[in-house]
């Protein structure tokens, strides 16, 4: 059994990196807009279908689709926030929450209608080539996903720390009124933020497709883990989301190993309740 633990931890880390990537987008949006985007999982599902259809109809490799899908989803996120969420919410946080829920209902059910509930997979041969890491064999697709997802977190952090847009985002997150007074376009900044969050999901979709299946419900499984990740990492904390995502990936993998595959997710939710009981501000969150 102990010989299985190390590979399980490694494969958990691989999956955890993708959870972290999805959660990074979510926590970024939370950190600035102070709302949880309930449409996050549906946008992930939409991105997965976009990448799938690019591959299926045009033969574009999922990794090469990144320069197409990423800007497209950034624009979609930007437009959703600027064109729908902001004008329809009348400025109330609870309304924003409900509108993102409504958006997810629309996307999910339309996907079910147009693409039916059939499970699809992309047969990308090289994705299942195995790579040997310290004696454990892992699918190439998962290893690429891990490396890319891990690379995004510091990139995003640098963007927030060193660019002008990043400073504007941080300013709006801390003090909206003050940011407005010094000439920052708050609505634009919100939309940029939503766009980046959605782009994270698009990247996750490109990395996931080679080794994952797609159904209209697939977003749901990811988004619940992403919610847990965001809470565990501390809402709004980028490094927190990265650490928590990796941790939850390992927890899921180990629970799957010891309790059986179908119970893997129970470990994640148990972790969630435990955090809630003992440290609701999360690992790296500010005290509430």
């Amino acid at each position, binding site marked *: 059994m102990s010989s299985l633990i190390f590979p399980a931890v490694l494969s958990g880390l691989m999956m955890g990196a993708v959870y972290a990537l999805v959660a990074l987008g979510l926590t970024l949006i939370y950190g600035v807009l102070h709302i949880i985007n309930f449409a996050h999982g549906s946008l992930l599902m939409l991105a997965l279908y976009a990448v799938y259809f690019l591959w299926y109809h045009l033969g574009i490799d999922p990794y090469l689709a990144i320069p197409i899908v990423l800007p497209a989803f950034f624009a979609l996120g930007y437009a959703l926030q600027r064109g729908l969420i902001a004008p329809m919410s*009348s400025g109330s946080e609870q309304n924003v929450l409900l509108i993102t829920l409504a958006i997810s209902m629309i996307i999910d059910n339309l996907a079910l209608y147009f693409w039916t509930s059939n499970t699809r997979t992309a047969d990308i041969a090289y994705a299942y080539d195995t790579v040997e890491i310290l004696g454990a064999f892992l699918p190439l697709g998962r290893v690429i996903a891990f490396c890319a997802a891990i690379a995004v977190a510091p990139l995003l952090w640098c963007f927030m720390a060193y660019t002008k847009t990043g400073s504007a985002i941080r300013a709006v997150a801390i003090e909206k009124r003050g940011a407005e007074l010094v000439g920052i376009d708050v609505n634009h900044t919100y939309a940029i933020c939503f766009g980046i969050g959605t782009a994270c999901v698009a990247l996750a979709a490109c990395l996931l497709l080679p080794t994952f299946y797609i159904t209209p419900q697939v977003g749901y499984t990811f988004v619940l883990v992403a919610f847990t990740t965001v809470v565990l990492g501390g809402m709004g904390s980028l490094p927190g989301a990265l650490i928590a995502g990796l941790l939850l990936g390992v927890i899921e993998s180990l629970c799957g190993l010891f309790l059986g595959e179908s119970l893997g997710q129970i470990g994640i939710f148990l972790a969630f309740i435990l955090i809630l009981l003992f440290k609701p501000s999360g690992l790296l969150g500010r005290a509430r």
Partner: protein
Amino acid sequence: MKSQSIGQLALAAAAVAYLIGVYFASSPVWMGFTINALIIAVVAMSWNITGGFGGLSSFGHAALYGTGAYASAILQVKYGVNAWVGFAAGILAGAAMGAFIGALAFRYGLRGSYFALVTLAFAEVLRICASSFEFTGGGSGLQLKLAPGLANLQFADRTVVYTALLVVVAVVMILTALIKYSRFGAYLIAVRENEDAARALGIDTYRIKVQAMAISGAFGGLAGVLYLQLWLFIDSTVVYGSAISVEALIGPIIGGAGTVWGPLLGTLGLHLLGEGAKHLLPNAPGLNFVLYAVVLICALRFLPQGLVGLAGKFGAFTKKKEAEDA
């Protein structure tokens, strides 16, 4: 306290007229459809206690609904307990679950997004647990024995079921009105409007919120038991699924959150709309949810006080324009 307007009375009268009209409908489809809508209306009323009066938007009311249904079903199937005892146990289990979630969430003052997430996660944990353990019937769910009769709370006659449901809905609405105009209701509304101010005035806000969750849980558990007694079968997706959580909050928001009639009006309206759409486009499952979502977005923008608030603008008895801009 805002006085009633002619518009609101007309709206309530229309709902009552519809509910009575169902007895005389030519097709039994109407009654079957309204029975389902009424059960959802009870969950909506449950959400309305916390979400409407207390401003605590739960995104996981299925946790309460499912707990009520499972508590009763487990007692009846595994321990052979009488259905009436199961009925009471379901309500109590719902209340206990509500108080438990509330106590956990409010201990740290979780609000807004955080509270929404926590409730959603609870419903999901319960769903996965219910589908994983033998005790709850696992993936195949729990089935009650078919034994029609008053003693078993099962009725073969649809009209009897419908009448019983109408009575239950009326009782829940009367209880809601009593809560709204009680001291407790005033405290709860104070928590919604400004929690810090409420606390400063000496209201034990933590206690009020947990009590509200318990009451909400009792109503939610009640709705779950009603579903169980009607269909005699539950599984984890049906009673703990996110569809219930969504329906629980959409009805009151569209009808008018924090009003006595709002949840009923919103739920009935939405279900009529969804049913109408089903007839126009019969091969589009899930289309009703797309419609609900569109209506929800429009309602948030254009009807901040829901249908009840809209109706209130027509034929007000008193010409005071207060509280509208507040």
